[in-house]
C-alpha cells in the first residue's frame, strides 16, 4: 500500500520546518465606544510570543503545555490557518510569508496536512467517508479519473487499517477511534510529508489512544512522515516524540530531545509539570506541592512569565525576560538555570 506514495529525496541537514520568532497577537479589546467611555486602552492577548524551533525530516517534534499556553495557535500558524503577527515559518527552505496567493500556496498546502482533536467535529456528518477522504485528492487535482480516485481512497482506508468498503458509510457509523483513523486517511490523501497533529488522541479512551499512537508510529516509518505533535499529555508525548518543546504562556521555555527532557528536565516549569503527573508505578515518591495556577495571558507577569510560581525566582526573573540558551542538547530559557541556582535533582 505504501508504494503508491512517491517520496521526494530530503535535503540532508536542512530542517523540514523552521519557525523564527513566530508570534501571534489577538486584539481582545472591548468595542471602541466602551473603550472611549471607560477610558480603557486596547488589550492584546499574546497567544504566541516569539518562539523558535526546527523540525528535522522524519522526526516528531512535540509541543506540550497547559491549556492556554498557545500550543494550538502554533499549530494553526504553521499550517497557515492564522497569519503570524511577527516572525515567519519556513517550510523546506521556503518562507511561507512570501506565498501570498492561493496559487503559490497550493504546492505547500499539499505537502502539509493537519489532524484535529475532535473526530466528531472534524468530519462532515452528511458526507460519505469516501468523499471525505477524497476531498484533498479532488481539491488538489492529484488524480483526475473518478474510478482511480475511489481506488486511491480504498488504499488510504487500508493504510489506516480500515476496510475499503467503509467508504460507503457515514461518519456516525464509526466509533471515535475509527473516526480519527478516517481523519488520518484524509490527511494522508495528498501524499503530505508533514503532518500537524493537534491533540489527536485526547478525545479518545486509553485503549483506543494506544491503537492510534501505534498507527501513527507505523505510518511515520512506512511513509517517512514528519510530525508536529501537540498534546497536554506528557506520557503520550514521551512515547511518540524525538524532540519536545515545553510552552508556558506563549513562550517556549525549554526544548530538548525527549529522553533528555524527561529524564533530566532543566526548566523549573518542566520539572513541575513532570512532578505533577500521577504516579502509575506507585513508588510513593514524595511530591512537590504544585503552587498556583496559570495567570491570564492578557496580563502576563513581567520578566519570566513563570516567576510567580517558581521556587527559584529572584529580582532578575521578575524584570528581565530570559533568553533561550543551549543546554543538554536543547535550549532552556531560565535565569536560574543560566546562573546554576537550581540544585541538581537528576531524574524527576
Amino acid at each position, binding site marked *: 500500500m505504501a508504494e503508491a506514495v512517491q517520496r521526494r529525496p530530503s535535503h540532508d541537514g536542512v530542517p523540514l520546518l523552521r519557525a523564527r520568532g513566530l508570534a501571534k497577537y489577538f486584539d481582545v479589546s472591548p468595542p471602541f465606544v466602551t473603550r472611549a467611555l471607560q477610558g480603557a486602552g486596547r488589550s492584546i492577548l499574546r497567544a504566541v510570543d516569539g518562539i523558535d524551533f526546527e523540525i528535522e525530516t522524519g522526526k516528531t517534534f512535540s509541543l506540550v503545555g*497547559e*491549556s492556554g499556553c498557545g500550543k494550538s495557535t502554533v499549530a494553526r500558524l504553521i499550517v497557515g490557518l492564522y497569519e503570524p503577527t511577527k516572525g515567519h515559518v519556513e517550510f523546506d527552505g521556503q518562507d511561507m510569508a512570501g506565498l501570498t496567493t492561493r496559487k503559490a500556496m497550493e504546492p505547500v498546502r499539499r505537502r502539509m496536512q493537519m489532524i484535529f482533536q475532535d473526530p466528531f467535529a472534524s468530519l462532515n456528518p452528511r458526507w460519505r467517508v469516501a468523499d471525505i477522504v477524497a476531498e484533498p485528492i479532488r481539491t488538489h487535482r492529484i488524480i483526475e479519473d473518478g474510478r482511480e480516485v475511489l481506488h486511491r481512497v480504498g488504499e488510504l482506508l487500508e493504510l489506516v487499517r480500515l476496510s475499503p468498503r467503509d467508504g460507503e458509510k457515514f461518519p456516525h457509523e464509526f*466509533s471515535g*477511534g*475509527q473516526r480519527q483513523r478516517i481523519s488520518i486517511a484524509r490527511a494522508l490523501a495528498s501524499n503530505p510529508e508533514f503532518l500537524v497533529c493537534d491533540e489527536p488522541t485526547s478525545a479518545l*479512551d*486509553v*485503549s*483506543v*489512544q*494506544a*491503537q492510534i*499512537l*501505534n498507527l501513527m*508510529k507505523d505510518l511515520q516509518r512506512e511513509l517517512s512522515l514528519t510530525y508536529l505533535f501537540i498534546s*497536554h*499529555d*506528557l*506520557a*503520550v508525548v*514521551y*512515547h511518540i516524540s524525538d524532540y519536545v518543546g515545553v510552552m508556558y504562556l506563549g513562550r517556549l521555555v525549554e526544548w530538548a530531545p525527549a*529522553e533528555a527532557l*524527561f529524564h533530566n528536565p532543566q526548566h523549573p516549569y518542566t520539572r*513541575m*509539570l*513532570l*512532578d*505533577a*503527573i*500521577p*504516579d*502509575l*508505578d*506507585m513508588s510513593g515518591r514524595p*511530591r512537590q*506541592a*504544585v503552587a498556583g*495556577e*496559570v495567570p491570564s495571558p492578557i496580563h502576563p507577569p513581567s520578566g519570566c512569565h513563570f516567576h510567580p510560581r517558581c521556587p527559584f525566582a529572584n529580582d532578575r526573573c521578575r524584570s528581565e525576560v530570559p533568553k533561550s540558551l543551549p543546554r543538554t542538547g536543547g535550549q532552556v530559557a531560565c535565569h536560574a538555570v543560566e546562573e546554576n541556582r537550581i540544585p541538581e535533582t537528576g531524574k524527576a
Partner: protein
Amino acid sequence: MAASTQPPLLEVKNLRIEFPTRRGTLVAVDDVSFDIAEGEVLGVVGESGAGKSLTGASIIGLLEPPGRIAGGEVYLAGRRIDNLPYEKMRQVRGREIGMVFQDPLTSLNPLYSVGSQLVETIRTHTDMSESAAQQRAIDLLGEVGIPSPKIRINQYPHQFSGGMRQRVVIALALCVNPKLIIADEPTTALDVSIQAQIIDLLKRLCRDHGAAVMLITHDMGVIAETANRVAVMYAGRLAEIGPVGQVIKNAKHPYTHGLMGSIPKLAHATERLVQIEGTMPRLTEIPNGCAFNPRCPKVFARCMVERPDLTPVDSSQISCWLYDKTMERTGSHG
C-alpha cells in the same frame, strides 16, 4: 466478602440499570456488586460507556429518565436507599452522600454568588442560622484552599478559575460532612498541575473528615495516587475489583492487563504500546458469554457461551473463566 461486625458504608448488590428504547431494552449496567468501607477510597475505572458514571448516578438517585434501576439493591450504612421516595432521597443526597461532578462550571449556578450557594446547601440540610452558615461557608472555602475566602465568598462562579471552581464544588459536597462522596471525573477537565492539587485536596479532606469516596475516572494515574481499591468496569459489568497495588501492577483480568499496557508510561520507553484490538461493544451488541470475548487474546470456548461471575483470586475478585477453580485451567497469564 469478609464477615464484619457492622455493615459496610455502601453496599451495592446486583445493580442493573436499563434504558427502554423503541428498539428494545438496553442494559447499561448489568449485575454489578461492590461495597465501600468507611473512610475507604474506591476507584471505579473504565472506558467511556462502561457504565461507571451511571453506577454513581444511580446510587445517589440522579439517574436520568428513561434510565431506571431495573434490579438490585443499594444500602447506605445498612439502610436501603434505592427505593426511597423523592423527598427522602433528597435528604440523603447532600446530607449523607456528597457529589462532585466533572465540569465545575455546570455544577455551579452562574446567577448566584458562591457564598449563597454554599449557605443554601448548608441551611437545607441543617438548622444553622444564616450567620452561622455564612461562617461555616467561609471556613469551608478556606479549608479547600481558596485564598482570602472572606472576599471570594461574595464572588460569582465566573470570577473563579477552573481549579478554584472545582474547589468550590468540593466545598459544596463537604458542606454537611457526608459519609460518602461520589466524585465523577473530578479532575478530567483540569490541567495536570491543577489536577495534582485537587487530588491532594481530596485525599487530605477525606482523611480529615473520615469520608469514604467513590472516585469515578478513566485516568489510572489518578486512581494509583488516590484509591485503596479499584473496580474495573467493562461494558456495564465488573471485570475486576481488588486492592489498588494488585490491580495496577499485577492485573489479572485480560482486559485490565491490556488496559494497563495501553497507557503510555514515563518510567520506561516502549516502542509500541500494548493494543487491545477493536472497541468496546455498543450496548445493543453485547456478545453472549463474557462481554470481552471478541477482543480477548485468551478467549476459549466457554467464554462465548457462559458469563463469568466475580470469583475471589488472591485478594481480588475477577470475573474471568481463566480463574475458574472448577476447571483445569488455572490462573497463569502473560
